[in-house]
């Protein structure tokens, strides 16, 4: 490796620059994301645990599945569909809720934890830019968590279908009816769209804000993330007796009216007509949110440059 020492020492710093082995940015990114997964195993363990818990409950509930199916088949097609599909939607909602919580707490700790345990001094001793680091951390809630949620949810729903089919076999209730009522493929498509659109794009400013606070706060990250928002709401209420800020936040967390589904309907509600990707992609709310996210992340990158261990 170090043959330079034998060579004649002519302008050595120059000569050593020959063939600067460079690692492509994508590879640094890949390892940075892997590092996050090593550190925060809750990213996949928490949704897995929820899925396991749900399946356990479901397993007990299917004792009564035969009666339930018979009762459902007597109803009109619309109600019938809703009733049969209900547990599958519930599984998705619970797993999504789990990953949302994981995402929030992950972001709060992402740029704070490394300063608290002083490991930022180690990370900064490696040729990885602050931008790469912050982007790799942002990609966890924006990309990784939605995909993990998707995979675990689909697997859970598939297992539920298999279990139900096993119970229904030989009961007289037709198994194919179940499979047509619970269309796994259609359900998965809508789930994927919902996850990428809402959790990946619409929620992005929430995660961006949390990452920014995480890079800035010395302690009590959660309080610093929540209190300013509360303060703005209160000041607005006192000063103008309005609550635009609060309703804006509610709108953001609620998913927005332009979001995937009609208000009041559950995301994975059957009729495909609820899906309005066109409206969603052209809604100003989405793009304003993404611009704000970019600003938050840019500020987080800048802060990380200046940050020292705490």
């Amino acid at each position, binding site marked *: *490796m*170090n043959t*330079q*020492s034998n060579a004649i*020492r002519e*302008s*050595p*710093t*120059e000569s*050593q620059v020959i063939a*600067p*082995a*460079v*690692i492509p940015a994508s*590879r*640094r990114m*890949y*390892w*940075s994301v*892997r*590092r996050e997964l*090593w*550190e925060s195993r809750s990213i996949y363990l928490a949704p897995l645990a929820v899925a396991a818990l749900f399946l356990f409950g479901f397993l007990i509930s299917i004792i009564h599945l035969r009666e339930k199916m018979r009762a459902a088949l007597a109803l009109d097609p619309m109600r019938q569909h809703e009733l049969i599909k209900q547990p599958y939607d519930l599984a998705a909602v619970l797993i999504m809720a789990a990953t949302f919580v994981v995402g929030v707490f992950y972001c709060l700790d992402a740029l704070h934890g*490394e300063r608290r*345990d*002083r*490991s*930022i*001094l*180690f990370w*900064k*001793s*490696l*040729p*990885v*830019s*602050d931008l*790469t680091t912050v982007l790799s951390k942002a990609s966890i809630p924006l990309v990784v968590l939605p995909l993990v949620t998707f995979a675990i949810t689909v697997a859970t729903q598939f297992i539920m279908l298999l279990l139900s089919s096993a119970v229904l076999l030989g009961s007289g209730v037709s198994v194919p009816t179940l499979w047509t009522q619970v269309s796994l493929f259609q359900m998965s498509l809508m789930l994927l769209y919902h996850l990428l659109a809402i959790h990946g794009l619409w929620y992005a400013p929430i995660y961006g804000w949390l990452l920014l606070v995480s890079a800035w706060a010395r302690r009590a990250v959660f309080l610093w993330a929540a209190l300013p928002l509360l303060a703005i709401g209160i000041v607005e209420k006192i000063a103008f007796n309005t609550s635009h800020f609060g309703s804006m936040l509610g709108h953001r967390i609620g998913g927005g009216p332009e979001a995937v589904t009609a208000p009041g309907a559950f995301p994975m509600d059957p009729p495909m007509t609820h899906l309005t990707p066109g409206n969603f992609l052209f809604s100003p709310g989405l793009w304003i949110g993404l611009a704000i996210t970019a600003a938050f992340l840019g500020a987080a990158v800048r802060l990380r*440059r*200046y940050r*020292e*261990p705490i």
Partner: protein
Amino acid sequence: MACIEARGLRKAFGTTIAVDGVNLRVEEGRILGLIGPNGAGKTTALNAILGLTPYQGELRVLGRDPWTARDQLMRDVCFISDVAVLPRWIRVSQALDYVGGVHPRFDRAKAESFLAKTTIRRTSKVRELSKGMVAQLHLALVMAIDAKLLVLDEPTLGLDILYRKQFYDSLLNDYFDRSRTIVVTTHQVEEIQNVLTDVMFIHRGRIVFDCSMEQVESRYLEVMVHPEQAAAARALKPMQERQVFGRSILLFEAVDRQQLAALGDVHTPSIADLFVAVMGKQAGEAQGAAR
């Protein structure tokens, strides 16, 4: 091109001036000891060199501005800033994977062979290792990187003497060659005395002493003075005088060896003694200025 070049390097935290107009030039292939009392500005100066903190003045490390180009600089610079900064959750194998994944000059086989000499298991997490083992692991990671500059800021603080000795031994035997530069700060001056090629003292944000070890040996002499010669010796204006077992030891700067030999036993002072003398002089000057 010098490895590190600073002109008028300055850094203030509010009203506290941590680094106050430091000029310094470290040539390639040197092992520089940066020595100073607590709060002298050592770590701040090193942080500026490593691109961890913004600064005023001019600073070039391997021809780059460390603050704006930290990530590129880190391809050629390695540092151990303080002990135990490896994340506690990481496994040894993961640390090897990660550094290998992001660092173009990391030689995994080399790191593995360093680790083979220790009792560190690949499957262990850092939190399960003793403090000494964490330092060994960090050193193994760093030594497997073909860097041009290695900066060590108190790398052995809190380690027992066996680990400390081993640390500097492996650094010298397995890592250092004439094309690399090492900058090290420590309070255990006497342990690195034989390792250094250059020494700098920093006091209140300023470099107060900058000398190669050869110069130290030729320029500074310590004399254990025969009691009857004490007055004659003091007439030569020693930098410092101290008493050991009832005998005076005087430290001289740029006084002829022959002349001193007549006064007592002459030997080269240790860096620690030189440091105390220089710091004493600084304090004296500060007092003088205050009066």
